[in-house]
């Protein structure tokens, strides 16, 4: 019996039982990691691998506009469900609702069969709330939806990406970054192609916060996607006391959040969603990105966006930056959906919202400024 069992396992509250078709539980893998640590890139690598064709995906995003799901190359044969919001606050209901929708879709024949689910969390997600909602003895099973999810899905593993170029900052300065690593079975070092990475030194560092985690280098010759998806069930046995305590805290303290609060704000971190419905001037866009990422006091943690530009309207530009590193922009061959608005999401601490908004407002060609719209 684990420490978690000793302290907090309680009988689940159930409504009248409903009859469920016999089936094997579908393994659910939680893919987490701090802002900009490479979750979506790893997810795309997984989805592009033939061995993972029967994978359903749930993508959650922080803030009121969605961009990440547009960048997941799932193809028509897979199902990507997205929910935008503050996942840290609504994790229990959101994740169960998403899995229930997958179950219903499959049962009704509306979705293709799938044999695993990957849940990509926000970069600010608290894995405790999500894990607690998916493990036996965690969040109470109250509704029939909860009952279906508990019987049809099992949490198999937690994977956390760790940016080898600035992962120290995520772990050292952000509670979420620490927790995402502490809960993981597998930690995947990303961006290790950008600098020399000493895996042993990272292993030593992780020993402090998660000695049982398997460390993988995504760019090493021996990296194997298959090894990230072992058969089995997520196990708390070898987790540090902090993990047990955080799960207990979910049970004891509960969701100490007001779900009606601003989904663009999470503690001291705020998301600034920006939208233009007209095409943008490419030179002004570049200037905007340069200014934003060169300002030492902008407080930006993450920027990502999909922008329509006047020079090639049919091919949107994907932009992203992590803290103050602006990564090379990339043109997509076409818009990934019917939504052809330019969307930019900034996430940061104490950002100067007014000046940023004004700069963004100035990105449209002068003749079209009257048609601008921002949220």
């Amino acid at each position: 019996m684990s420490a978690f069992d000793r302290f907090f396992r309680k009988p689940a509250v159930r409504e009248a039982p409903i009859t469920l078709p016999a089936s094997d539980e579908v393994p659910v893998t939680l893919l987490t990691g701090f802002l900009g640590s490479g979750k979506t890139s790893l997810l795309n690598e997984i989805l592009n691998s033939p061995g993972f064709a029967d994978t359903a995906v749930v993508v959650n995003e922080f803030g009121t506009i969605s961009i990440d799901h547009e960048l997941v190359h799932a193809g028509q044969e897979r199902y990507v469900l997205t929910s935008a919001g503050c996942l840290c606050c609504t994790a229990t209901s959101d994740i169960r609702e998403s899995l229930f929708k997958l179950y219903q879709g499959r049962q009704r024949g509306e979705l293709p069969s799938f044999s695993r689910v990957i849940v990509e969390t926000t970069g600010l997600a608290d894995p405790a709330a999500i894990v607690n909602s998916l493990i036996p003895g965690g969040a109470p099973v109250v509704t029939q939806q909860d009952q279906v999810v508990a019987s049809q899905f099992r949490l198999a593993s937690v994977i956390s990406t760790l940016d080898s170029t600035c992962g120290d900052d995520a772990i050292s300065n952000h509670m979420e970054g620490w927790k995402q690593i502490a809960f993981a079975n597998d930690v995947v070092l990303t961006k290790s192609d950008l600098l020399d990475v000493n895996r042993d030194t990272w292993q030593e560092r992780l020993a402090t916060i998660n000695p049982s985690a398997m460390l993988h280098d995504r760019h090493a010759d021996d990296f194997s996607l298959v090894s990230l998806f072992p058969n089995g069930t997520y196990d708390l046995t070898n987790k540090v006391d902090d993990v047990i305590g955080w799960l207990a805290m979910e049970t004891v303290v509960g969701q100490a959040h007001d779900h009606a609060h601003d989904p663009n704000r999470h503690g001291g971190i705020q998301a600034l969603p920006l939208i233009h419905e007209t095409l943008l001037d490419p030179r002004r866009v570049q200037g905007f990105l340069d200014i934003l990422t060169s300002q030492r006091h902008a407080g930006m943690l993450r920027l990502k966006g999909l922008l329509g530009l006047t020079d090639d309207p049919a091919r949107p530009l994907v932009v992203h930056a992590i803290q103050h590193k602006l990564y090379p922009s990339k043109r997509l061959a076409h818009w990934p959906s019917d939504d052809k608005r330019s969307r930019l999401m900034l996430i940061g601490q104490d950002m100067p919202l007014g000046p940023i908004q004004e700069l963004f407002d100035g990105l449209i060609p002068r003749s079209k400024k009257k048609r601008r719209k921002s949220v």
Partner: protein
Amino acid sequence: MNSFANPFMRHASTPVFAHAAEIKRWARQALELDQKVIISVNEIACPQPDCPPQETVILVLRAGSAVKLSIHKALADVVEADVIDAAREAEALEPASSTVS
């Protein structure tokens, strides 16, 4: 080890997990707890308009029971006196450990 140092970091001193360990040590001393008792430290977002945006919660876990200490500060800003005050307050409210419900 990559020693990349972000010049924009707001808390450039103690790592959050190291400061959490310090808070646990202070709580253990203040409540006179032995090493077998699990203490957990967390920082949660507080949406209440009159509160600071972050709250530090310390949970003391004994078999079948838990005591919660709340400090209305971000974890990085918590000092030993805050933990002592919170422990006194919790002891006053809960002379015996509270049962988890």
